């Protein structure tokens, strides 16, 4: 199938409108695609998060904000479970149930499912606080639900997934031994080629840089904020590049409040704004709020 402006717009914002990994967790351990992090003594943890995203505005390849596109509001109930395999390695699985709403119309459906592996290569040490914790992450998101490419509903209300598999690798560096916390994460992803009704779709690889700064005013509470630079390469359809620039660039901000109670359940409240500052293209401006409950089992 040939490229068309409508198709390009759809593909260019497909990745932006789908549910993103919970990078607001970036440095509560790390950035990557896994919302639940285990400390060295935790064997299992359950995560339940409720996310609301709204105020969607598409940013085109010129960096101009266009009229709203797709749903007015997306909500998601995210379930994740983490299980320790060794003292330095744990695996987690997350999936969810989403609802897309436009006015009085709404559709619900399962979201994509991700399997994540996180390995602590270097542990933090309070006697040498200038040595960071280093974690490596490998993650795979499976296309398990309908995406924008398969959407048949008006305003893409039946689209809940990316529409392709995607494999992530990343590293997370975190200085968390002082009251002032800081860190950085890098995440690279390679989307898998997918046969769609428009043709063979190959989304470009993504590079995500996350810088995080936080403060721990008490033993049981921390505040973390950060910026994200999210860059995705151009899209190809049947090995043909798009006639207009289809690469994505988005600069996002986030703020997270999290409890760190030792023997009780914990909560995380996150706010993020995508395409919030700097130059952005083929991105989506949106506001996202997440409230999560975490229980160590």
């Amino acid at each position, binding site marked *: 199938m040939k490229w068309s402006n409508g198709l390009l717009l759809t593909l260019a914002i497909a990745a932006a409108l789908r549910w993103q990994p919970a990078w607001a967790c970036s440095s509560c351990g790390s950035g990557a695609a896994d919302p639940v992090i285990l400390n060295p*003594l935790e064997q299992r943890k359950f995560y339940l998060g409720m996310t609301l995203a709204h105020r969607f505005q598409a940013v085109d390849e010129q960096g101009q904000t266009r009229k709203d596109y797709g749903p007015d509001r997306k909500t998601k109930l995210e379930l994740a479970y983490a299980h320790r395999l060794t*003292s330095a390695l744990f695996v987690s699985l997350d999936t969810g149930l989403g609802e897309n709403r436009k006015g009085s119309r709404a559709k619900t459906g399962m979201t994509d499912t991700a399997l994540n592996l996180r390995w602590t290569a270097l542990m933090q*040490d*309070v*006697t040498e606080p200038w040595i960071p914790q280093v974690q490596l992450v490998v993650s795979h998101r499976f296309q398990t639900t309908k995406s924008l490419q398969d959407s048949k509903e008006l305003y893409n209300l039946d689209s809940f997934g990316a529409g392709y598999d995607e494999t992530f690798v990343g590293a997370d560096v975190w200085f968390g031994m002082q009251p002032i916390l800081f860190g950085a994460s890098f995440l690279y992803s390679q989307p898998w080629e997918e046969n769609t009704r428009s043709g063979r779709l190959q989304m470009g690889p993504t590079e995500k840089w996350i810088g995080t700064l936080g403060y721990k005013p008490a*033993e049981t509470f921390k505040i973390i904020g950060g910026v994200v630079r999210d860059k995705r390469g151009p899209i190809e359809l049947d090995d043909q590049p798009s006639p207009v620039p289809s690469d994505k660039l988005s600069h996002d901000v986030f703020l997270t409040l999290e409890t760190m109670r*030792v*023997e009780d359940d914990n909560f995380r409240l996150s706010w993020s704004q995508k395409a919030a500052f700097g130059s952005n293209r083929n991105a989506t401006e949106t506001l996202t709020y997440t409230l999560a409950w975490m229980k*160590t089992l």
Partner: protein
Amino acid sequence: MKCLALIMGLLGLGSPLWADCRPVNITEFREATQKSPNRVVFFASWCSSCASHITADRIHDTIFVASADTRPKADKVLQVYLKDRASAATCFFDKDESIAQAFGVRNLPVEKYIRDLRQP
């Protein structure tokens, strides 16, 4: 007095001068703590909030247990927090995390009491 302690330490007599967290499992821990203080403080080198629980005034009524850590790091943490009192502290290194499991410890810092120990 300090010179005497140093000489005794060098000769291997009496208590070591440095923190020494003895590696034990839960069985050995039960045997070793039958006549020990009741309070148990769990700590590790990766726990930045543990400092307030490892203080010199607790040495005589507290058992310190390092878990999910390495023994050299645990010794070092105790030495940093307790300084020249470190050698007087009762400290165990939870070599297989069985002590933490027996107390139901899943995060740090945490204080327990011997009575919290689950029966085998």
